């Protein structure tokens, strides 16, 4: 589960984890909307002292989005101003009206007056402030206009104003309008306005270069951090197409379109957009003299690298490898070590699909550190830790490594990597079977303030780390029997990562796993069986394993055995130790269910050895429980009790409720079995303590609603009470047993022989 997603490895808009928008020169021009803003600014300057503090603050907050955002209709602008300061809105409107209904010279006069705000000993606007820059841009742009352009601007202003007036008029008219002829006239007008209105909703007019850049960088960062807040794929694509229609050279739009296509898993258009982007980028690289030839070659390398990333994302590993080879070759030819490092990281990811390649990774980390690429180095360390964890390396060393890389993250403020690191710790603790530690880490991430939240105001919560942590959290809750809480978390996941998004598969898998467990607990095997298909689709190994478990539960032993054997061989080949141990346990269970306890023992010992070697503590204790059970059946309950003491502690501390119940039940059984040889008085004591343990087991089973186990416990308890001669308690237990027994179908395995 601890996984570092590959898409994080490279992204051209992102160096060392920071999104850079392309830095262009001044490309802005005067539009009627901008003129309205200018009027607003000059009115603001004029009203200056009269404005209240609160109004002033509201206006200031309004200004920045207005200056950066796309052009909007006058009515919307007026409404926005009115919300802050109604008085000012009125005066802005009047001045616009005067200008629009006056003559051309009014506009010329207006622009002449604008530059006055800079002059004087105490200028109203500072030249280098945001507003000052905007004013100066506008004045410059205006002065550059040719004669016909000035006139065109003026007519545009008139139209801008008249459209607003007309709209107001139409709103008023609507009430009185009953005359059919007028209706006809209105229809016609609507027909005329039809296509335009549609555009207006999406985007009012063409964006200037600055506005477009702002739009792109905003959407890109949203896509990266919180996909749900970005525009929907379809409408974003529409916007981009619009943008590209006006300016096909706007390369960044192609890149965003690539990212957008990735969201909907569209290979064709994403490839198309990506290549188009780099074709265009090569141009800009060639044009800018500062980069010279180098800039041009650079984009070529990254083009190939990105293509590799794209193929990898879609699972075309062979293609990805070819593209990567190409990138590596070009990077080598031009001695671009940074690019080579990126390539190396990618190579690792690709090779990982085929075989373990720690060497590559270690190399990558070393080199990245050498070239000062902390982002890559940390990612490398994290991948390495993940791999080592699976390979059963010493836990303390791994945690140390993570701690060291955390230091690096905090130093460079790589908040994304901090998140990943915590998620990874959660996953590793889970792997080791320390659920409390995992829980703590998960909560840490969720309640931590992201670094970026301070900067951008966008909570970074759409990343894989969050998905991983939340999934773990859901599972941990389900294990403890808090199903409502688990489903609440899953609901939240569904909202945060809609089904078609990149990380949705994670929660889908966990959701089904939890459902599966519940169905198994309830004994609704057909439901569990129907879930297997879904699990297999998301994770084939997990699916096969679950299938075997269902078969086992349905007493189809030989099928289950066959499946498990196959799975065992496969998992041993791909070195998935966690699964190997689980499979071994299942196989052992199959054996003892068929009353072949002697065969089960070596299998269990093998599992125990493996679990100890890879420090998978929880699996180890589970194995011990199984072992103890086998010993109990083989008639050495004292021995069983001895080894149970080893396992009971971790199980009670970290285990799932069901396991706790099973463990307590088993303890009770062993106690009873070993009591047979005791003196009567000691025997009574032992039996009484067994009853207490059974009570505890009962509460655990009740928590997860395991009726079958409950029934068994009750039966056992009734027998014990009977032996002790406590008739009343015995009858109570017997009654409860009967109730349950009628509900459930009888199963073939004798009660004493079942451990789980």
């Amino acid at each position, binding site marked *: 589960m601890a996984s570092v997603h590959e898409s994080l490895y490279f992204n051209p808009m992102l160096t060392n984890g920071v999104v850079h928008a392309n830095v262009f020169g001044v490309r802005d021009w005067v*539009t009627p909307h901008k003129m309205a803003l200018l009027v607003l600014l000059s009115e603001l300057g004029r009203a200056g002292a009269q404005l209240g503090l609160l109004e002033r603050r509201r206006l200031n907050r309004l200004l920045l989005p207005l200056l950066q955002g796309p052009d909007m209709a006058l009515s919307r602008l007026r409404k926005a101003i009115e919300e802050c300061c109604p008085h000012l809105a009125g005066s802005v409107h009047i001045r616009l009206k005067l200008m629009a209904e006056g003559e051309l010279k009014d506009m010329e006069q207006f622009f002449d007056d604008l530059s006055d705000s800079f002059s004087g000993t105490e200028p109203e606007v500072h030249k280098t402030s945001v507003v000052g820059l905007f004013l100066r841009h506008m004045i410059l742009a205006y002065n550059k206009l040719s004669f016909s*352009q000035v006139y065109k601007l003026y007519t545009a202003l008139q139209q801008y104003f008249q459209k607003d007036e007309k709209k107001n008029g139409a709103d008023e008219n609507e009430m009185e309008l009953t005359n059919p002829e007028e209706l006809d006239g209105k229809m016609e007008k609507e027909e005329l306005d039809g296509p335009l209105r549609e555009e207006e909703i999406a985007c009012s007019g*063409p964006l200037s270069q600055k506005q477009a850049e702002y739009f792109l960088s905003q959407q890109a960062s949203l896509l990266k951090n919180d996909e749900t807040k970005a525009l929907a794929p379809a409408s974003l694509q529409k916007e981009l197409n619009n943008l590209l*229609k006006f*300016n096909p050279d706007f390369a960044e739009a192609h890149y965003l379109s690539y990212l957008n296509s990735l969201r909907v898993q569209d290979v064709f258009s994403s490839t198309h957009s990506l290549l188009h982007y780099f074709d265009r980028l090569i141009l800009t690289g060639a044009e800018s003299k500062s980069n010279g030839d180098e800039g041009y070659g650079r984009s070529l390398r990254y083009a190939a690298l990105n293509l590799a990333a794209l193929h990898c994302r879609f699972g075309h590993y062979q293609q990805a490898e070819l593209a990567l080879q190409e990138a590596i070759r070009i990077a080598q030819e031009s001695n671009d070590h940074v690019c080579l490092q990126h390539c190396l990281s990618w190579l690792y990811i690709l090779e990982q699909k085929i075989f373990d390649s720690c060497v590559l990774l270690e190399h990558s980390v070393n080199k990245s550190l050498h070239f000062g690429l902390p982002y890559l180095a940390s990612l490398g360390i994290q991948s390495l830790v993940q791999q080592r964890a699976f390979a059963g390396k010493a836990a303390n060393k791994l945690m140390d490594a993570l701690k060291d890389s955390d230091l690096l993250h905090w130093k460079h403020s790589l908040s994304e990597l901090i998140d990943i690191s915590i998620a990874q710790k959660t996953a590793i603790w889970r792997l080791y079977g320390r659920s409390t530690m995992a829980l703590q880490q998960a909560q840490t991430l969720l309640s931590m303030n992201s670094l970026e939240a301070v900067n951008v105001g966008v909570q970074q919560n759409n990343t894989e780390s969050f998905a991983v942590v939340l999934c773990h959290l859901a599972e941990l809750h389900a294990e403890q029997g808090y199903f409502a809480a688990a489903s609440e978390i899953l609901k939240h996941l569904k909202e945060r990562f809609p089904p078609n998004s990149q990380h949705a598969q994670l929660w889908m898998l966990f959701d089904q796993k939890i459902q599966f467990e519940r169905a198994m607990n309830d004994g609704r095997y057909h439901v569990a069986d129907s879930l297997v298909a879904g699990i297999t689709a998301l994770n084939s190994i997990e699916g096969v394993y679950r299938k075997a478990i269902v078969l086992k539960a349905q007493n189809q032993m030989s099928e289950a055995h066959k499946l498990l054997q196959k799975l065992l061989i496969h998992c041993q080949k791909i070195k998935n130790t966690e699964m190997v141990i689980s499979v071994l346990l299942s196989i052992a269970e199959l054996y003892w269910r068929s009353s072949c306890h002697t065969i089960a023992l070596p299998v269990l010992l093998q599992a125990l050895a493996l679990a100890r070697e890879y420090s998978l503590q929880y699996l180890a204790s589970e194995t011990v429980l199984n072992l103890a059970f086998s010993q109990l059946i083989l008639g050495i309950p004292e021995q069983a009790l001895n080894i149970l003491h080893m396992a009971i502690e971790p199980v009670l501390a970290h285990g799932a409720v069901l396991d706790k119940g099973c463990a307590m039940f088993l303890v009770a059984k062993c106690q009873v079995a070993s009591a047979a040889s005791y003196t009567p008085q000691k025997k009574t004591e032992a039996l009484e303590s067994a009853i207490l343990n059974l009570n505890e087991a009962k509460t655990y089973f009740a928590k997860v609603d395991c009726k079958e186990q409950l029934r068994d416990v009750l039966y056992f308890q009734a027998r014990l009470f009977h032996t002790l001669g406590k008739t009343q308690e015995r009858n109570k237990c017997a009654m409860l047993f009967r109730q349950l027994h009628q509900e459930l179908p009888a199963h073939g395995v004798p009660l004493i022989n079942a451990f789980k």
Partner: protein
Amino acid sequence: AMIGRAGAMAAAAAMVAVGGGDFSDLREIKKQLLSVAERSRERGLQHSGKWAAELAFALEPLPLSELPPPPVLTEEDARDLDAYTLAKSYFDLKEYDRAAYFLRGCKSQKAYFLYMYSRYLSGEKKKDDETVDSLGPLEKGQVKNEALRELRVELSKKHKAQELDGFGLYLYGVVLRKLDLVKEAIDVFVEAAHVLPLHWGAWLELCNLITDKEMLKFLSLPDTWMKEFFLAHIYTELQLIEEALQKYQSLIDAGFSKSTYIISQIAVAYHNIRDIDKALSIFNELRKQDPYRIENMDTFSNLLYVRSMKPELSYLAHNLCEIDKYRVETCCVIGNYYSLRSQHEKAALYFQRALKLNPRYLGAWTLMGHEYMEMKNTSAAIQAYRHAIEVNKRDYRAWYGLGQTYEILKMPFYCLYYYRRAHQLRPNDSRMLVALGECYEKLNQLVEAKKCYWRAYAVGDVEKMALVKLAKLHEQLNESEQAAQCYIKYIQDIYSCGEVVEHLEVSTAFRYLAQYYFKCKLWDEASACAQKCCAFNDTREEGKALLRQILQLRNQGETSSTDVAAPFFLPASLSANNTPTRRVSPLNLSSVTP
């Protein structure tokens, strides 16, 4: 208005008398052509008029008695006559606003059309003027014909009331197309073709809007002889060359043999399937018939360029320059001329000029890309090709050019995408397939490479290199039998064409075959091949050595090898069926093809 409508319908009905690909009454056709030429001219539709007139010119002249009568004037026409006459003269002088001003309120069909058309053209002209000084770079795409929306509203009202004649519908369609309402535009053009099938403009617009064969299938077109011209034209556009040529041949057989339009179209079609000799001879014929023609001469120059016919190209360039040097085609021809003389800067300059004259002239972008490639300015080349693709996504040459650029930049995997695009657009063009094969070979994906080469051969290899490359691949993979088979086919191919001189690889083929037969102990074949080897400089020595060896071995084992008697070049195992079928199974490359 009702009368006008009825009149138009009657006229149209009379004109559709000859229908359904029936060319028996050429006189009637000629009459129709003459009359529609006249009517188009009255409405200022110069190009349609020109087309009809050109076609009419190809038919026998009519005797006086059969000349079409001057169009009958209705009461309305008479009322609008003064305004129309004045406006038409303004229109001819390109004073569109002025023409529209005097035509407002006119009710007759002719005057109304001219009124609307003037407004449309005025809008277009202003749009062009404004593109020069728009406010900002992003606004450039935003400049649009302001008149379009008003025209659309008015025309759609008339359309709903069924008051538009064929020309009016045509104009409505054009307005819709300019507003990017493609579906509606197609419907209106089809209607226009039904009402007035003789108007070529409507058909031509349809040609531009229909992008594939499927779309064509679902159109319900009027059953007239004009449809044949339309089909031939659109087949050429959709690269369905064989069908197009068939259509044109039947048109020629029907009596249009003198039409310069058809001749030029056939030449273009041959150019498209790279039958260079035929295309050249037809173009030469065309120039004889119509020496001052500038249209299609850019295609002609491309052909001359491909054949490196310097003097002819130079003559053509100078000739066209004399006729009109500010035509797109002229600039293109001159560009080709300079390119052939390896003066690539100048060539690029002329292509740029062509683009200034007409920014939508697609060919020039691609050609400019080629020039930049020659100048090793890869980034500029990529830019030019990308522009070409922007203008027309189906321009396979631009995709191919992009592929080549990246191949030059040593990115064989990256260029696969572009070659694949080109291949998709021209599935039966061997050049793309060979290029694809070469890329796969560079990527060491030999299976894919083999598929590509084989396919290239199967669809008819233009450059005759696919087989040699395939053979070499087999050689590399130690599949000697297949390699030999390929070489044999290659040699057969070359000899059947009769142009051995240019192909250096023939000697390689013979050398390999000689060695192969030698290994198989087929002495006769081996010595025949070795003798052939001696005819080439580079393999002479080897050939001789092999001959000596064969002689030696033969003398030793004379008795043992008498039973082999396979025919020359075709050992029994190979002769079964080695002609590739034209219809090969789809190219199933294992890689994902976005």
